[in-house]
């Protein structure tokens, strides 16, 4: 391939530099749509389906109170007689039909999934946000300041990276439980989860941002900004940060999938979201008890939802990584 001129391998260029007054500038949306990323999106059916599923699930979670038939955690709306209704079969006692069945308490599985999705997504997003802010900050500091700061941050990162994040999360969870008095444990569980997953996941961000910062730091425009007396903070935020956004976006997407799975795993292990605020993982944990007695739907539908969510976010992350890294294709 060495004989090929570079330009032949690039995608269509977005309409750059239409700064002249006479030229009518296309709308901002148009520009984004025409860009390489959008081009690649429109040509990847997998990415489009994944984005659609993700969006649908996020919307369902946000509007859960509107979309759900009942609030499964309002005891007054529950009827124990509805317990163990099979999907789509009218209940023998009450005659009510639940399309995804009910659990032992008579809760509509469809509604518990929607509320569970809310918890799962909330924990996932918050944990990634936490990891992102922490990781990007530490990565910038390590790369820009160097020296002693860098050594400490990157050493800690290296050691933590040796351990699987699920183990780190479990440890942090265990320690937090030890510190929090028993009566607050259930109340604080969600926040402890976010803390544990976030802390177990910042390293990726820090490493990538540090690497990019080291590269950018020595470029002439940064040196110039330094010479004219810009403060370190301003240089990091205005000049270096924008350059690391696309890898950070890729990591954040992949981290979201990992965080959702981590939350589900912790909750499944019984150390995550409590049964009073069940996430998808908690629902699966509950459902596992009924697997042998034949009430498969209590486990099956939450599991499918979790899988659809994790898979589509993962696929989005995969596509994003390929689309932003032209070297691979």
């Amino acid at each position: 391939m060495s004989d090929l001129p570079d330009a032949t391998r690039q995608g269509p260029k977005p309409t750059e530099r239409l700064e002249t007054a006479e030229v009518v500038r296309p709308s901002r949306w148009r520009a984004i749509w025409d860009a390489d990323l959008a081009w690649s999106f429109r040509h990847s059916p997998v990415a489009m389906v994944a984005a659609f599923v993700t969006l649908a699930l996020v919307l369902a979670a946000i509007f859960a109170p509107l979309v759900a038939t009942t609030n499964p955690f309002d005891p007054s709306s529950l009827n124990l007689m509805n317990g163990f209704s099979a999907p789509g079969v009218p209940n023998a006692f009450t005659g009510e039909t639940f399309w995804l069945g009910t659990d032992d308490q008579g809760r509509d599985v469809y509604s518990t999934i929607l509320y569970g999705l809310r918890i799962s997504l909330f924990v996932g997003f918050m944990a990634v946000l936490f990891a992102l802010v922490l990781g990007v900050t530490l990565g910038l500091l390590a790369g820009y300041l160097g020296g002693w700061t860098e050594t400490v941050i990157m050493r800690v990162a290296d050691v933590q990276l040796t351990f699987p994040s699920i183990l780190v999360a479990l440890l942090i969870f265990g320690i937090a439980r030890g510190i929090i008095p028993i009566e607050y444990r259930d109340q604080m569980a969600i926040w402890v989860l976010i803390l544990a997953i976030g802390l177990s996941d910042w390293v990726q961000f820090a490493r990538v941002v540090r690497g990019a910062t080291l590269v950018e730091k020595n470029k002439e425009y940064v040196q110039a900004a330094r010479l004219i007396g810009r403060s370190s903070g301003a240089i990091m935020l205005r000049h270096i940060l924008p350059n690391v956004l696309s890898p950070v976006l890729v990591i954040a997407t992949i981290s979201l999938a990992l965080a959702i799975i981590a939350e589900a795993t912790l909750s499944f292990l019984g150390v995550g979201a409590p049964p009073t605020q069940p996430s998808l993982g908690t629902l699966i944990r509950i459902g596992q008890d009924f697997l042998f007695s034949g009430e498969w739907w209590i486990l099956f539908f939450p599991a499918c939802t979790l899988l659809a969510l994790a898979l589509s976010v993962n696929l989005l992350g995969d596509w994003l990584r390929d689309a932003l890294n032209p070297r691979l294709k």
Partner: protein
Amino acid sequence: MLAFIIRRVFQSVIVLLAVGLVAFSMFRFVGDPIENLLGQERTVQDVERLRETLGLNDPFPVQYARFLGRAVQGDFGISYRQSRPVAQIIAERAPATLELAFVSGFLALTVGIGLGVFTAIRRDGWAANVIMSASLIGVSLPTFLIGILLIYVFGVQLRWLPTFGRGEVVQLGWWSTGFLTQSGLKSLILPAITLGLFQMTLIMRLVRSEMLEVLRQDYIRFARARGLAAKSVNFRHALKNTMVPVITVTGLQLGAIIAFAIITETVFQWPGVGLLFINAVQFVDIPVMAAYLMLISVMFVMINLLVDILYVWVDPRLRIDGRHA
């Protein structure tokens, strides 16, 4: 090369000291050890006497050194929950986890590398595409769901395989093994697949991408230009070079298997250290958590060292004292 290994050992020791510090801090500051040992009925004198005997009044570094000294001798204190020495509890449980991890690791390594090479060589074939798509689902599928799925299919529906516990075990000294009985082996199948599957997909995807990278290299091109057979190009030239980066990650993945055993052991009620740890987290049994953390760190550090040595063995460029100096 000796200098390289000594440096690595030195770094490992520092990592272990840091982990020990974390474990000790947990021990010392999370939950009050006095409260956990004495219970509700106690006098100020009792507390003071216990503080003195436990050495809690000594300066922090002294306490830390003593903690490490005991840990090195295998004394990790008494479990809050079971009121027995932690070392004893872990020794009882370790064989179950190690046997499970060994079988899963073997599975992940052989199948993972095999499929990785296959999908790299046949990168556009339909079989490779099917395997790659399946592996993406494998990566997205949480381990515990795989376990539940296997239980449902092979345990509940087909009733072929046991779904919990280790089956019958045979005692060989202090080691209890499930390898020697039929029920022990049968019980091992589902948990081993569950535990190995995730690492297997990871290893496979890694081997594939590294191999594709290697296949793009000039020396592969040159090997092809010399008319070498496909088998020789793929295995003799490409695979060996693929293994250099793969060894590192694979080593870490095998270490991770021990940690991921926590999940599998919970799903299958497998009586190993992972299940012990999860119970410890639930009941804030700090001595057990601390001991588990330290043991697993030692294991990781040893795997890392082994990986470094393997690395030097595979790649002649790292052998500074080459034969032809």
